[in-house]
């Protein structure tokens, strides 16, 4: 026994301690509990993985039967295979770093213990999600991280925009979860089990149409959780949460749950060609779409948020192109450099006392050098400059895409160029040129910069972790050989993006505005995020709201239900009002009624032939 259960339960203990007693505990104790539980969990992951050795096949621990219904048995089973191992290291490793960073970032904020309680709870659910050995346990973690996401987006609950964003995230995710639930029901019907170990080996023998439907429904779930079109709209708004939350939940870990789930279900997708094709289309579409929006955002966190959506699209492109290991590889490197980008952005925001608008930054390179240099590492990593992390994983995906369909490769390269451009734009606007705000920037404390440094190292060297090779027992490497020309083209695209951004924002600072003006309507369209939010508002939110108000509230509730209740009452009152007239107070009129009644009874008895036996 490796006691896998300790891995998620440690953060759960942290949550319980901080959640129940955090208000009374000293700040140091809260910090110790929050950090300790996550670091111990990380240590236990490392110990477990060392103890499990090569891990050629899945290692499963069965604890107890959660419930049994007919032939369906769902157990509280945890399993570790190589895919889980990668996810465990990313979640606990990056999670620990972000926890450490958050100690510095949140130190002046109210609700310190509440924040860490939620963050630990998130770790618990995320670890359940990756460790679960059946779909239902995965779903428990899936829902749990959604809850924590909601709680943490709305952490500043006095701010209306924050609570609105939380609700938006929750509701949009619900749409995806609906698909996931249906997929699970279909799996139970088709396979008679929810265990990964029972479902996937049997997938080959099932009809393709059923598998396609399951795959599409799972994809709907993944689209919600991993912010893919058309359900991506919640992620940019989720930036209302504190920055460490954006880094941990909305960049590095939770949003990759959909990628993990699709990769986990690779056996189904490999036998459902149309569903897998759809994964590629959704991924590619989202990647391009979000990248174009990212080009014109002015909020530094929004830029990175759209970048996250776009990079997640990349991962889905990899999965859809059949290169599951490439998708997971990008998940890992993306966790490194995107967490770093967000934490760096947080450090910038912290230095500028809450300023998030790129137009009010500038010239920070010399003021906060540690933040700048660490962020620069993430910059080169995401732009795909060899030999840094993003280059390896992005190229793995692009090569797979080329092998799958060449046009997808070219769209991917275009996206890569845009990615390089918008990240460079953010960097140039924030760190180069003249200071444009009225701030006195100060470098962040070591507790924040140390995690930045570690992540910077990982962003630079993370590409040399050969994740696809490690995952080969699960996902056979695609045969697409390394084509030097294709690699060179994508690198040139990245460099071109950086160069263009340098031209626009450093060499000729006025040029960007001129181009924006020249593009006119197109720029307005992109700047306003293609009016997708407005579109959803008009197409979904308003009809639902109006329908609820006019039909359900005023029609059904006030009209039908209240009407029925009030109707019964008024009928009783009207009847009473009529009967009251009989009560004249005159004895002789009462007597008359008695006589009439008697006559009526006599007549009735006569009519039915009473008395006759």
């Amino acid at each position: 026994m490796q006691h896998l259960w300790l891995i998620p339960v440690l953060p759960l203990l942290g949550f319980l301690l901080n959640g129940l007693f955090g208000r009374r505990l000293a700040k140091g104790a809260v910090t110790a509990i929050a950090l300790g539980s996550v670091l111990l969990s990380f240590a236990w992951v490392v110990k477990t993985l060392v103890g499990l050795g090569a891990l050629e096949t899945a290692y499963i621990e069965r604890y107890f039967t959660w419930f049994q219904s007919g032939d369906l048995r769902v157990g509280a089973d945890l399993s570790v295979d190589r895919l889980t191992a990668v996810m465990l290291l990313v979640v606990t490793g990056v999670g620990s770093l972000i926890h450490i960073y958050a100690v510095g970032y949140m130190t002046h904020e109210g609700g310190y213990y509440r924040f860490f309680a939620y963050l630990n709870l998130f770790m618990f659910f995320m670890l359940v999600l990756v460790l679960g050995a059946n779909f239902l346990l995965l779903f428990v973690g899936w829902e749990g991280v959604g809850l924590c996401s909601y709680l943490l987006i709305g952490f500043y609950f006095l701010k209306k925009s924050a609570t609105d964003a939380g609700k938006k995230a929750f509701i949009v995710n619900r749409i995806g979860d609906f698909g996931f639930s249906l997929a699970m029901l279909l799996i139970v019907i088709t396979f008679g089990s929810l265990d990964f170990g029972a479902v996937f080996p049997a997938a080959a023998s099932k009809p393709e149409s059923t598998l396609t439907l399951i795959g599409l429904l799972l994809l709907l779930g993944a689209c919600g959780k991993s912010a893919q079109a058309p359900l991506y709209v919640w992620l940019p708004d989720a930036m209302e949460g504190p920055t460490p939350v954006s880094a941990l939940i909305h960049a590095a870990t939770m949003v990759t749950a959909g990628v993990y789930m699709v990769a986990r279900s690779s056996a189904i997708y490999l036998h459902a060609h149309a569903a897998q094709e759809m994964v590629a289309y959704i991924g590619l579409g989202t990647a391009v779409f979000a990248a174009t929006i990212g080009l014109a955002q002015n909020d530094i966190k929004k830029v990175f948020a759209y970048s996250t959506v776009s990079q997640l699209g990349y991962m889905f492109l990899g999965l859809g192109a059949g290169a599951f290991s490439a998708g997971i590889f990008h998940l890992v490197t993306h966790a490194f450099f995107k967490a770093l980008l967000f934490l760096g952005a947080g450090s910038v925001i912290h230095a500028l006392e809450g300023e998030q608008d790129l137009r009010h930054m500038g010239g920070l390179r010399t003021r906060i050098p540690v933040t700048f240099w660490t962020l620069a590492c993430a910059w080169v990593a995401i732009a795909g400059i060899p030999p840094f992390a993003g280059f390896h994983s992005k190229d793995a995906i692009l090569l797979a895409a080329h092998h799958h369909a060449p046009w997808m490769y070219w769209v991917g390269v275009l996206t890569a160029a845009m990615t390089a451009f918008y990240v460079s734009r953010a960097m140039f606007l924030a760190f180069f040129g003249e200071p444009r705000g009225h701030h006195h920037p100060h470098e962040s404390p070591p507790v924040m910069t140390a995690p930045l440094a570690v992540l910077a190292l990982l962003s630079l060297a993370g590409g040399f972790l050969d994740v696809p090779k490690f995952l080969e027992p699960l996902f056979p490497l695609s045969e697409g050989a390394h084509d030097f020309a294709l690699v060179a083209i994508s690198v040139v695209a990245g460099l071109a993006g950086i160069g263009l951004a340098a031209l626009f924002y450093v060499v000729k600072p006025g040029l960007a505005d001129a181009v924006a003006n020249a593009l006119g309507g197109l720029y307005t369209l992109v700047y306003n995020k293609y009016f997708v939010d407005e579109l959803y508002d008009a197409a979904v939110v308003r009809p639902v709201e109006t329908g609820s108000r006019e039909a359900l509230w005023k029609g059904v509730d006030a009209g039908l239900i209240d009407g029925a209740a009030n109707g019964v009452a008024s009928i009783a009152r009207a009847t009473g009002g009529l009967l009251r007239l009989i009560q004249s107070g005159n004895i002789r009129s009462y007597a008359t009624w008695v006589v009439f009644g008697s006559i009526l009874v006599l007549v009735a008895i006569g009519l039915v032939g009473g008395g006759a036996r």
Partner: protein
Amino acid sequence: MTGVPLSWYLILSALLFALGVAGFLFRRNIITVFMSIELMLNAVNLSFVAFSYQLKQVNGHIFTFFVMVVAAAEAAVGLAIILTVFKNRETLNVDEVNSLKN
């Protein structure tokens, strides 16, 4: 039973009862109304006794005694109420005794 058939008794009983009802409905004097009630009770008594005699059973007699006892008690209470009403209202007209309503 010789001579007088049962139907005659019953017709007499019905007539007496109808008279009682009419008196109850159309007279205003409380005493008269009260007497009408007694008339109705005795009309019923008559039919009880007639049936009892006809069927050679004692039940009707017993019932009649019960009715007479209750009627006597009722007369005592009723007359006491009428006296009190007259003391307070100085009237015996039932139409004016309606203070529960007004």
